[in-house]
């Protein structure tokens, strides 16, 4: 094998170029297209990208910690998607699993415990809630053959409105009806760099990513998950229980999403609560899918991709008030979208056949009943 050990499991794509190099090329391409778009609309791409770079990685005291902090929840939601994809399933449910995880984390506000324990209990609650929520689609798939694509999307809606309800009526702060009760200091991730958003939640995300990497590539359990994902019939032939790999990957993915919920409530200033309408959480699960694509669905790749996304996010905001003719947010988002798309394309193309298969399975199921294996 010519790739380094760290890149095990990062698949080569159609170009045959080294995946890391390919990502860099894609990023450059995305930046160029973004520059052209800005030029066409009369903005100065040099100045804008300079602002982006400075805002994202301009210093260790503020910019870099901010970028990292932005990436933390994305690492976790991206892992949710990637773990399940490695097991051969499209889990679109990180969004909803994250919501319930966040709601569970907020419930620690009703407990009285000393510092590290209070935090730990909250994290465990969030992880458990995410896992339990993700078991719904997993069980539906195993017992009734319901496509996980459909069921996770539906579960997202259910959890969205469930958490809306919880925020408005159950966890609500009676004096500040727009949000839930705040998580007390004893259950917050300590801020690592004062004056920034970077909290110790980053260690949790990092640790979990490494754990997933180890699990997938260095344990028999992870081996089974990957085998089942790449060739389920061969996996069955190899004595691997698909039921187990499905349950396991969904549960693990749910834990990751639940932790993302914990990170955004217990580890993100200033609110430390869920705001009505979930504006702090909204779309982090879906953005995680983009991160997963850019990170080639590999835990280590995801770490880099999330840092990149965090940088885009942190630096992008600087674009809108830097220089003489700053780029408005809408244009910033167009440019960001272009860059992200360019970087996600190689992986999207690679998993396209699997996507088609998932789609075809849906169509088949909708048709006359087939004697599919349980």
């Amino acid at each position, binding site marked *: 094998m010519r790739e380094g050990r760290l890149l095990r499991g990062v698949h080569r794509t159609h170009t045959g170029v080294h995946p890391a190099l390919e990502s860099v090329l894609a990023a450059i391409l995305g930046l160029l297209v973004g520059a052209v778009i800005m030029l066409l609309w009369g903005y100065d791409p040099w100045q804008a990208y300079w602002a982006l770079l400075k*805002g994202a990685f301009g210093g260790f005291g*503020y910019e870099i910690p*901010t970028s990292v902090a*932005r990436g933390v929840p994305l690492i976790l939601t991206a892992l949710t998607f990637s773990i399940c994809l490695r097991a051969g399933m499209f889990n679109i449910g990180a969004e909803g699993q994250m919501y319930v995880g966040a709601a569970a984390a907020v419930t620690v506000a009703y407990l009285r415990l000393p510092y590290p324990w209070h935090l730990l209990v909250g994290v465990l609650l969030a992880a458990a809630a995410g896992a339990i929520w993700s078991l719904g689609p997993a069980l539906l798939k195993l017992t009734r053959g319901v496509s996980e694509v459909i069921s996770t999307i539906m579960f997202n809606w259910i959890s969205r409105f469930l958490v*809306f309800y919880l925020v*408005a009526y159950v966890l*609500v702060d*009676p*004096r*500040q*009806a*727009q949000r839930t009760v705040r998580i007390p200091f004893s259950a917050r991730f300590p801020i690592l760099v004062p*004056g*920034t*958003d970077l909290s110790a939640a980053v260690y949790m995300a990092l640790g979990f990513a490494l754990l997933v990497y180890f699990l997938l590539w260095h344990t028999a359990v992870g081996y089974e998950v990957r085998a089942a994902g790449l060739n389920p019939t061969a996996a069955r032939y190899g004595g691997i229980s698909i039921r187990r790999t499905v349950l396991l990957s969904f549960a693990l993915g749910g834990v990751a999403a639940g932790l993302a919920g914990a990170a*955004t409530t217990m580890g*993100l*200033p*200033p*609110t430390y609560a869920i*705001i*009505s*309408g979930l*504006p*702090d959480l*909204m*779309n982090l699960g879906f953005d995680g899918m983009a991160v997963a694509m850019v990170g080639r669905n590999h835990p280590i790749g995801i770490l880099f991709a999330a840092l990149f996304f965090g940088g885009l996010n*942190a630096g992008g*905001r*600087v674009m*809108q*008030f830097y220089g003489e003719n*700053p780029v*408005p*947010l*809408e244009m910033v*988002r167009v440019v960001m979208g272009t860059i992200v798309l360019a970087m996600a394309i190689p992986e999207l193309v690679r998993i396209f056949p699997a996507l088609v298969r998932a789609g075809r399975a849906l169509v088949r199921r909708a048709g006359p009943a087939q004697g599919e294996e349980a």
Partner: protein
Amino acid sequence: MRKWLGLALVVALVAAPAAAQALKGKVAVVLDVGGRGDLSFNDMGFKGTDKAAKDFKLTMVEVQNATAADYLPNLRNLARSREYDLIICVGFLLGDALEQTAREFPTQKFAIIDSVVDAPNVMSIVFRENEMSALIGALAAMAAAHHGYPKAGVVLGIEIPVLYHFEAGFRFGMDWGNKKYTAVTGKPANVGLLYTYTGSFSDIALGKAATEAMLAQGAVGVYNVAGPLGIGDLEAITEYHRNKGTRSGPPYYFGVDANQDWMGKGMHGLASGMKRVDVGCYMAVEAVVKGTFKGGVVSLGLKEKGVGISRYEDLLEFIEFGVSAGALKPEDIAETILNWQANRKTLPDWIWAAIDELEAGILAGTIKVPTADSLVEMQAIRARYTLGAP
């Protein structure tokens, strides 16, 4: 270099009182997630700051937020640059983030609309929305009774305390309108209230869906208390009219924050509960320029002309606003005014007089409009003015 900077800082600090007037020449306006283009709250904040910047020859920088998680980093970025005389936060949701930033940057001046942030460097501008909402509520109730509709509707955004002001005032106003109608016509009026917290200040489709549901239940019109969702509200009302083949009359659209009567060429906007965010922003900038800026709460109501019900004079000002936002074509201005006037004529003069009477009462302090700042208080008001609810 360091030393030199430190020295400069000391000099600056010592010289601070005297140099208070020395402006850096830049103000920033930070909008909430709804962003520009809502033709109400955010656009008004922009409009007021922009006007002040022009009047006082300052540069204005506008900052939008993609999600609520952007508030804090955006405020920090602005404050860190130390380039701004004033940073205005338009919207309640920025409150938590501002509280943090104001503490981290005690020499930076801030203003916030709709929220109270207890810090010496923050001017908190709040509005007595209950007052103008009472006027709209009274108008809606009397209009419903007049046209024989059983209900009037309110579509609200996220359930935040600010919105309780609207709901409380509207409830009081409807109750007042019901009583007034009975007193004037001798016929009992029992117009009920339909209200929904959609949970969003950005999803226009939610506004449309909520309005459709209310119209189906016989609402005489809908009061938009959710910023951009009003675009959806009006769309539903316009479609309703198109299906019925009517050009004016009920159901009506009641705009919010800005004077939104001109929207949709003025066909269905009857009146707007104006909350002059622009006035608040202008005031804050003016205070900084004139050196009178002070931390603390500034409350704007009918009396301060911070809120009000829309009238013909405002219509012209806001038609201009609509034209500049590209939401109204200049050639449609005349038609818009005619439409609006026709629509207003669908109600008898005595109702309009009654609204003036209510306004005068509030201004004089003889009529007290209740308000609510928390769920508990809101529930008390809901219990008091049930408006058809069991």
